[in-house]
């Protein structure tokens, strides 16, 4: 089962993203975390395949959490959620080995679903093969 962890401190957006993903991929196991500490804990226990990580979790930096996760679980796919599609953000994402860059309010649902579908297809292909 493909496990997704959504790390987002805004409850409304976290729930909305979860609903959106489930509406498209009902079979997914989707978990939630509202801060960095919870995120690390759930990563360690659930070992998700993919993480949607908000770049800012209150006073915490999403990038710092990504750094910690990637250090321990380099194969987990991570998409970062930012408010700004700026070169500095993309460069930071690259620096922290983020796999996908999503801009809140700008990226469309299709962008997200399309990217997730491509991930799942690739996983299925690998699993099938």
């Amino acid at each position: 089962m493909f496990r997704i962890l959504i790390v987002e401190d805004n409850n409304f957006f976290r729930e909305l993203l979860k609903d959106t993903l489930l509406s498209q991929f009902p079979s997914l196991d989707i978990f939630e975390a509202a801060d960095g500490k919870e995120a690390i804990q759930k990563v360690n226990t659930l070992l998700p395949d993919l993480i949607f990580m908000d770049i800012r979790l209150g006073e915490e930096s999403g990038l710092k959490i990504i750094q910690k996760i990637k250090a321990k679980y380099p194969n987990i796919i991570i998409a970062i959620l930012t408010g700004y599609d700026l070169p500095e953000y993309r460069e930071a994402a690259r620096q922290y080995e983020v796999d996908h860059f999503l801009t809140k309010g700008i990226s469309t649902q299709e962008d997200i679903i399309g990217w997730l579908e491509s991930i799942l297809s690739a996983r299925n292909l690998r699993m099938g093969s």
Partner: protein
Amino acid sequence: MEQDTGTKEQLLVEIEDLRTRLKEAEETLCVLQRTEEILKKFERGKATILDATPEIITHLTADMKIIWANRAASESVDLAPEQLMGRYCYEIWGPLSEPCPNCPALETVKTGEAGEVEISSPDRRIWLHRSYPVTDASGNIVNIVATALDITERKRTEEALRRSENAYRTLSENLPGIVYRVFIREKNRMQFFNKMLQPMTGYLVEELSAGEVCSVEPLILSEDRAAVVATVKCAILDNQPFEVEYRLRDKKGDIRHFLERGKPIYGEDGKPLYIDGVILDISKRKLAEEALRRSLDELEIRVQERTAELSKANKELKAEIVERLRAEKTLAEQSRILEAFFTSTITPLVFLDRDFNFVRVNEAYARACQRDISEFPGHNHFEFYPSDARAIFEQVITTKVPYQAVAHPFVFPDHPEWGTTYWDWTLTSLLDSKGEVESLVFSLEDVTERKRDEIALQESENQLHHLSSQLLVAQEKERKRIARELHDGLQQFLTGIKFKVEGFLQEIRKSGIKTETKPLETVIPVIQESVREIQRIQTNLRPAILDDLGILRAISWFCREYEATHPGIHIERKIDIQEDEVPEPLKMVIYRLLQEGLTNVSKHSRADLVILSFRKTDSQIELGIQDNGQGFDVQEALSVERPSRGLGLLNMRERVEFSGGSYSIESIKGEGTTIRVSWKVCAGEIARGL
């Protein structure tokens, strides 16, 4: 017959002969008589002559008896001539009993020769005794003629002359000069009377050649020679003594100074015979004169200098006297003024002795202390008013350097209800003639009201400062809160709405229901634009990138945006610091400084280049914003007349100061502006930030 005849004739002859003889005898007798008469005449004449002479003349027998004596002889012994006759001469003039042993007459008797001898008489007179023999026809000595002449004066004269000659000779020989005689009629032949020619000229007499006036003349320097010759010739013509100075080159070639004095001597024919003179070497005198002249010149100069100095000193002294009189007058006037000032001034004044005892206080001081003026003398200042200032007072005594206290706090022990009072005071030492501290002048000014106002003002300013700081903190917090609200609230909701709309459209497309979705689709870009607007507002309030990615990427973003907005300005970035080296609280301050600084550049500087430096050294973090713009007068900009830029600059400075940093701005008109900010980084790093 013939015999008779012969005898007769013989007799006749004899008679005739007798007659002839008689006649001759008569003639002879006649002659004799005449001769006798002549002789008598002569004898009388001779006696007269012999009596006239002052010389003693006697006619003596061979045994010295006086036959005749002249008047001088008789007068010499005060006897008549007759009284001398027949007496021995030595009895008369001795008086002796026998002839004088050295009588020349004895020798004449013996030898028949005339004799002469000088004999001194007991009365110290000198006599010249001469004796002459008187002989008969046979040449036998029959008598003696003795003479005696008093030659005392002559001898004395001769002696004087001899001594004079000796003296002259000695003088001549010892004279430090050449004594000479020039024989004018013998081609100016020169005779020297001493041996000084060679010592003085180096020449021997034989080496000299004749000159116009003497044989020394050719040795005289040509410059002096004509004058010497002229002087000597004039002297000869005028028969006058002369004196002339000249220089002479001696045999060695050295120049010597000579002084010559001479006198022409004329002959009985009225023509010059010779010149007698002396030549003196005055070289030493000349040298001495020259030295003296130089000395005199020098003395003259010194006298002139000294006179000038004295004149100057005199003038100065006079001026000083005038000045002193004026000063005394002024001093007296000042004393009166000072006394009036001391008694009437509102400044409290105190005179203390060196042990801090009150000597005198003025009314103002007594009033300030609320005591009577008579209470102070005889008491010690610190007895009345013990205070921590005693050490300062003692320091003034030691160092003699005045001390000024500003707003020094003091509580009157006798008036604690007045609370803490504040005093500006000065303590000055007065020195005696030996430079020792004699007394102290203590002047005070009550600044309690001013100080209390200052304290109140300071407190007010501190509060204002604090408030200002709090305001900035609150502003930043509020901005952050609003930005967060916008991000977490509105932006999330809009994003959610967009997701919902997108989901709804997705479902419609999947269901195959034919319906008009266009109006709904147009909502999506509106929502996206709304999100961007919210982000813009949020960024203006507090750029999310600062919180999301840190200061270095925030700077990168801001500079990029700035250059895009102001295409004429290029920012050269010199970043030499790591993100984690920047204390978190400082990041917002740095961002705001950059924002303010670059806003000023674009607004005022007309620069086309900004050098932005941000680096960390061992001890501090440094931020520099340097532009190449037109620069400005910083003081003017900070004045109240230019509030817009001034407020920006003040705002920057406040942010830096509140964050514990140092701020400086340097601007040169025409060359640009440089803002430098630094923060010390210690182990604890920077805690504050805005």
